């Protein structure tokens, strides 16, 4: 009866996919919401925002990709908080399953959701007129960066869910954290249009660095750098460092928190 972590993780991930089958609304935040954002910014706000070398639609997609993936923190946090609240977690812990499979199963299911998000966003982007203007390797690197960042966000979401325990609280805390972080950045408007203090904040914001890296790798226009800090001046290597560090951090704190919460 020797099973691998992967087998158990897949069994548990199937559970999350089943949840989506039963409650498809759960998918709105990774499907309909990004789509709405693209259309809203491309056609409603976009006309008022000036971007050189390529126009706003080319600028927008990199920002929305990272912003939406950052919001994907809420999904895993909600799932874990619900499991903890309903005690389902205790059931799995009395089964002969690999201990790490529980978190890893959630990760796999959420990653599937984030992949879907990326596909939908790129598809919508192509429809509204976004294109890449870089070599295949650079575009591939951009996609890889998105996947690593998505991984980091999910692990941080898993940690948040164990920490907070209540699905309602997750909603509140998630919004309060993710909203300012993603909006005080170069995601939707070029940084130079902000007041000087905010320019510093937005330039130092790792989200800005990630977005700048994605835009650079896709060959899309980037927000001119006004406040020179190393990461925003070197977005691609900095984004990789941030993402890898965030994966390591998220994975560590989530696993640790999980062990602490489930071993009394």
């Amino acid at each position, binding site marked *: *009866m*020797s*099973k691998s972590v992967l087998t*158990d993780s897949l*069994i*548990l991930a*199937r*559970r999350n996919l*089943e*949840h989506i089958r*039963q*409650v498809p609304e759960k998918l709105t935040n990774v499907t309909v919401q990004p789509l709405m954002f693209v259309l809203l910014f491309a056609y409603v706000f976009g006309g008022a925002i000036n971007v050189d070398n390529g126009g706003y639609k080319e600028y927008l997609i990199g920002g929305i990709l990272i912003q939406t993936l950052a919001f994907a923190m809420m999904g895993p946090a909600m799932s874990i908080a619900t499991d903890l609240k*309903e*005690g*389902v*977690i*205790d*059931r*799995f*812990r*009395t*089964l*002969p*399953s*690999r*201990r790490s499979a529980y978190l890893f199963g959630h990760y796999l299911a959420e990653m599937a959701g984030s992949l879907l998000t990326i596909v939908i966003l790129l598809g919508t982007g192509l429809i509204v007129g976004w294109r890449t203007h870089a070599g295949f390797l650079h575009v591939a690197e951009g996609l890889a960066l998105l996947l690593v960042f998505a991984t980091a966000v999910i692990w941080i979401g898993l940690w948040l869910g164990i920490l907070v325990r209540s699905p309602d609280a997750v909603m509140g805390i998630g919004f309060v954290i993710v909203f300012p972080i993603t909006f005080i950045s170069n995601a939707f408007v070029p940084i130079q249009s902000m007041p000087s203090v905010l320019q510093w904040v937005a330039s130092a914001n790792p989200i800005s660095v990630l977005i700048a890296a994605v835009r650079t790798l896709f060959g899309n226009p980037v927000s001119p750098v006004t406040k020179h800090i190393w990461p925003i001046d070197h977005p691609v290597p900095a984004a990789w460092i941030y993402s890898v560090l965030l994966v390591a951090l998220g994975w560590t704190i989530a696993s640790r928190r999980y062990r602490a919460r*489930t*071993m*009394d």
Partner: protein
Amino acid sequence: MYEQTVRPLKGAGDPLSGGVVATGLGKRFGDLWALRGLDLNVAPGTVLGLLGHNGAGKTTAIRILTTLSQATEGSATVAGIDVAAHPGRVRERIGVAAQQATVDGLMTARLNLQTIGCLHGMSKAEARRRGDVLLERLDLSEFASKLVRTYSGGMRRRLDVAASLMGQPEVLFLDEPTTGLDPRSRGDLWEMLRELVSEGTTIILTTQYLEEADRMANDIVVLDHGRTVAHGTPAELKARIGDDRLDVKVANASELPGAAKAISVFAEEEPMYDMDGLVVTAPIRPGVRVIDVVRALDDAGIEAIDIARREATLDDVFMSLTSNSHHQRDDSKDDQRDPI
């Protein structure tokens, strides 16, 4: 981390080869001992009833034995395996139905069981087959494809029991399995558990109901504030509890000692009284008529508001087993909860 299965020979003469053994098991939360000094020796194929009120330590004991919680002191083996040293191997041999039904509301009953079966290492088809058998056995076949969140409390509970049986456990832990079940489902469940026991399964069940412990258990451990206050067969325990109870309610507290004295001639042991409820209670000797009690009280000049004869309840068990009489259960809570 994950141990290979080495199934020991069951019932091979070694007392540790099956069943459940606990020695001096204790669990402390902060400075409060939720459980202390629990000794168990449950032979394979028998039923142990853990009897006690909420907060008595029943769930804590179950959580330690099912590897969900670590004991602060003492040790335990389940199916011959040390729970602290080899939790993974213990999990292969146990089934658990927790007090709170731990089933997934957003899946159907069938998928819930299938997922659990797969985590036990069964193939999908195998898990589905076993799940269907259990759903049938627990009278849930009709609702197999319904989302569990539409289930009533009793249905959830039955599904939880089914979930605990997916792995064909050697030892089954049921934490208040019949709470929230209607009398018929309760009877059905009891019958099913008896079948399992006759097939060799060891069961530890917790309950707040004396009747349930009486009907199901070969042995009963009575817990109060984390302590074992009695241990024996149902018959032994009942012999200690005594017969029917007599409650006499008086108008004011000053009459309590007089009332206690008046009814002591009918009682098996010293009457106890509850100052707040103004009630004197005593186990009554067989053959005593209520009318005689009324007369005796009248002769003593006690103004009884109400006189009632009733069967002994769990509360009476605790009254006679836990407190040194003239104490209300709740009054003694604080000093009993303190660690020594």
